[in-house]
């Protein structure tokens, strides 16, 4: 087992090549790229393409990538030698700037602008070094997005601000719980309940006549839209196993979201 948690398996691992990195090093780099792309919300096809392109530019004759929900397996071949490695994948999320950083790094390695060890170090540091928006801005924009959803779904203007506050607070709670490594599904349920409750109470106090829509809009930040669309892409592109695993996870997220919403609705809508 390697120090970065990537177990190594296979046979006839590549010996260092005078012209470039060893096959084992290329496989390790490919796994790190694939793992980060998957954790940042990329579809299986794009991961396959990125790894295959990198491996070919680093002298491999063929590169096979097998993406699963919790692991990636890479098989590389160069002349007579071949290498198989498997790496674990962490929590799936969405980080588009992270995706761009990883793709850019893969491109620089392919073009010889970055050597293997520097690339591996940069990749290992990517989750910490990728720039992100301030927390307050993310919460505010998430709230604004949910309020806009409310308008699209037919909520009145009186519910606009309560939905904004409810979903912004929900996003802040979600981030705080996920940073503390709390269970994703429990977090989803809690956030759904709090967001819907705040939006419902606020909308009721404001005199809105569309409480149900307001409460439902406030929890839409939890709908895993990118994961849902990746499921479609994976199915269409012939990756049913990955799609099924992603789908099961999405179903559970939606279930916990609905439970939180129903609990809040029972409190707010009772007697109306």
């Amino acid at each position, binding site marked *: 087992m390697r120090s970065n948690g990537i177990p190594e398996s296979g046979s006839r691992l590549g010996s260092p090549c005078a012209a470039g990195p060893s096959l084992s090093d290329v496989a390790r780099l490919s796994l790190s790229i694939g793992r980060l792309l998957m954790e940042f919300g990329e579809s299986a096809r794009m991961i396959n393409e990125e790894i295959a392109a990198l491996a070919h530019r680093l002298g491999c004759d063929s590169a096979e990538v097998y993406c699963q929900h919790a692991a990636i397996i890479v098989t590389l071949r160069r002349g007579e030698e071949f290498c198989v490695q498997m790496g674990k994948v962490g929590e799936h999320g969405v980080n588009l700037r992270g995706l761009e950083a990883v793709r850019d790094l893969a491109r620089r390695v392919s073009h010889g602008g970055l050597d293997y060890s520097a690339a591996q170090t940069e990749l290992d540091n990517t989750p910490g070094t990728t720039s992100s928006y301030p927390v307050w801005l993310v919460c505010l*924009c998430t709230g604004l997005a949910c309020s806009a959803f409310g308008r699209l779904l037919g909520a009145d203007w009186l519910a606009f601000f309560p939905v904004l506050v409810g979903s912004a607070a929900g996003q802040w709670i979600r981030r705080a719980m996920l940073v503390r490594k709390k269970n994703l599904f429990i977090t989803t349920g809690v956030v759904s309940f709090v967001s819907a409750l705040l939006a419902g109470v606020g909308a009721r106090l404001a005199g809105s006549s569309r409480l149900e829509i307001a409460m439902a809009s406030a929890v839409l*930040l939890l709908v895993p839209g990118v994961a849902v669309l990746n499921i479609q*892409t994976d199915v269409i592109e012939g990756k049913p196993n990955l799609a099924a695993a992603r789908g099961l996870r999405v179903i559970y997220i939606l279930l916990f*979201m609905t439970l939180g919403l129903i609990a809040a609705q029972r409190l707010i809508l009772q007697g109306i």
Partner: protein
Amino acid sequence: MNSFWIHIIHQAIFGGIASAGFGILFNCPPRIILYCMGSGAMALAIRTACQSANLNLPESSFFAALAVATAERVLQPFQQTRGSIIALVGSIPMVPGRTTAKGLTNFFELLQARPGEEIAAATNGMRNLLEVILTLAAIGTALAIPQLIYPEKQAE
């Protein structure tokens, strides 16, 4: 300006705001947030127009997602970003989250339904979930079509 155009503009504006908000949530690079907003506005405007022409939600969502994915694919040579980030974020407001929650809520209500109410609750739940599944399938397929017909070339 008649109510049809006002409705389209309303949906486009709030679709754009929702897309931009989700773009920030997904940590989109700042330089493409405006594109995401435009993509969301375009998607919602097309979907609303299709619905006004009596197409159902899955059909309307399909044409809207196909339009933004095609537009992104055509404009790809002028962008720095690979992949389909802009079309993806633009399609997020069309993901029927509320209908999903409504469908699941209907199934929960089925557990408490009085005699005679079960069929209505089950039918509503099934109809909501069917609509969700078909809409998601339509969006996913539409987003994939331009890439499948005209795949992106790897950067040289």
